[in-house]
């Protein structure tokens, strides 16, 4: 992939992130408005809006602040939530990983991301941050232990591509929003079913029709609150799956060696050890799906729909195809020494 493709992907990611944040804030606003109607501090009397939608304003402000905070400190929050610590050259293998990160940053023509380590025996990795100059790449101790230099180049190349084309920004914001929406919709549900419907009624000459309208809006919000978490999960997954194939391809572009990532994925496919700290909120950030039982190569529609990652089998098959087509040429021109 040439540099211009990365620029196109970067532009798309900047746009997607902006759209996502806008949708997120609007959704919060809508849910807040529903709560206003339920709480009767804002209502329709004689076809006129009466009162002040204080909860809507609060939800909008909350969503806006949360977006800004997570844009600037989302990476630190993610690192904190998976108990990652900075990776230092305290052993020969750690030094090797640091070196490989430097190498792939040179190949991707971006500043070197900050290296982090998770004490987890399951081989996995993720990248996050808001742009290449504020990015981190985190590997698990399991990955460090099990990968040789060539495999590590493939894995780090994959992560470096997420950094270079701004996937990390989109994925980080999605992680925050999925969490935020789940929380708010939970809140809306509790509110509405336990005490939300009480409150004083206001009635004008068109009382029935006003109440009907208010009921409709409340109903719409209940439905919205019900589907929003599922929908946001589906979105996160769809957005993430496509990116994995792209990042695999870019990793090959950087290493000029399809075998590197292919060997790494084949290796990981053989290991069935789910990540201890992999939570639903951060699953889509990782290199391979960290959750138990998620490694199966189920190809069904629903299996695909509810997975943050394409099946490993499919990713391996695509890399094998690359190895078949351009493999001989790519390896002859492969730049790296894998000592």
């Amino acid at each position, binding site marked *: 992939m*040439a*540099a*211009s493709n990365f620029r196109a992907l970067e532009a798309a990611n900047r746009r997607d992130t902006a759209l996502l944040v806008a949708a997120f804030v609007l959704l919060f606003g809508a849910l807040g408005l529903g709560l206003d109607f339920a709480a009767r501090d804002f209502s329709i009397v004689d076809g006129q809006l009466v009162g002040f939608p204080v909860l809507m304003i609060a939800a909008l402000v909350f969503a806006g602040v949360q977006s800004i905070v997570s844009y600037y400190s989302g990476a630190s929050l993610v690192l904190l939530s998976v108990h990652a610590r900075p990776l230092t050259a305290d052993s*020969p*293998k750690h*030094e*090797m990983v640091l*070196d*490989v990160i*430097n*190498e*792939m940053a*040179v*190949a991707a*023509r971006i500043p070197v991301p900050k290296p982090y380590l998770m004490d987890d025996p399951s081989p996995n990795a993720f990248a996050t941050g808001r742009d290449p100059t504020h990015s981190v790449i985190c590997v698990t101790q399991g990955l460090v*232990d*099990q990968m*040789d*230099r060539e495999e590590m180049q493939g894995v780090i190349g994959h992560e470096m591509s997420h950094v270079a084309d701004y996937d990390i920004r989109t994925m980080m914001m999605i992680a925050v929003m999925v969490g935020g929406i789940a929380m708010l919709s939970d809140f809306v549900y509790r509110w509405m079913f336990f005490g939300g419907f009480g409150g004083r009624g206001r009635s004008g000459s068109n009382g029935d029709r006003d109440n009907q309208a208010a009921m409709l809006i409340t109903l719409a919000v209940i439905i919205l609150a019900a589907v929003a978490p599922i929908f946001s999960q589906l979105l996160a997954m769809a957005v993430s799956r496509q990116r994995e194939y792209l990042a695999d391809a870019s990793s090959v572009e*950087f290493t*000029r060696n399809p075998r590197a990532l292919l060997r790494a994925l084949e290796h990981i496919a053989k290991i069935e050890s789910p990540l201890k700290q992999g939570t639903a909120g951060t699953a889509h950030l990782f290199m391979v799906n960290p959750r138990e039982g998620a490694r199966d190569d189920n190809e069904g529609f629903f299996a695909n729909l509810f997975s943050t990652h394409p099946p490993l089998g499919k990713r391996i098959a695509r890399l094998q195809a690359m190895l078949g087509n351009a493999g001989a040429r790519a*390896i*002859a021109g*492969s*730049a*790296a*020494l*894998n*000592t």
Partner: protein
Amino acid sequence: MMVILLILVAIVAWVVFAYNRLVSLRNQIDNAWRQIDVQLKRRHDLIPNLIEAVKGYMQFERDTLTQVVEARAKAVSAPDQASRMAAENQITAGLSKLLAVMENYPQLKADENVLKLQEELTTTENQLAFARQSYNDVVLDLNTRIQSFPANLIATNFGFHAADYFKGAPEEQAVPKVDLSMTTPRA
């Protein structure tokens, strides 16, 4: 009248855009070249240390060692860019041969200092190779742009020239791929 004016504005805007694009590519090439330079210098600094560390063990590889040392001396004192690059390519070939024959000396694997130097040299070689790869990618971008119509009109009028690729030594391709698993034991 209005139409002609609009067309003129469009042309000027395009010229500015195309010119800036070429400038940006030229800067990227300079930047990519600096990356290469950093690694070449780092390699020059590493070679004496590595030779010092291994020569005790590798009495029988005097030729390989001398080849690297001499190529380094040539590169450091090269009068012009072309002879410097030729010498650098000799270093690359010599080092990959050296790293390969080091496999035959099991004692080296026990020497922590050697292992450290070997890792450092390996990553320098890799960064050099990747830097060269991106340098050549940007050169390809610039050259394609300079040669294609209508950007070539801007290029010729504002003094943009096609850049040279950084070619590897021919023997470099012939060197067998080395797999020194000594630094990376499989768990």
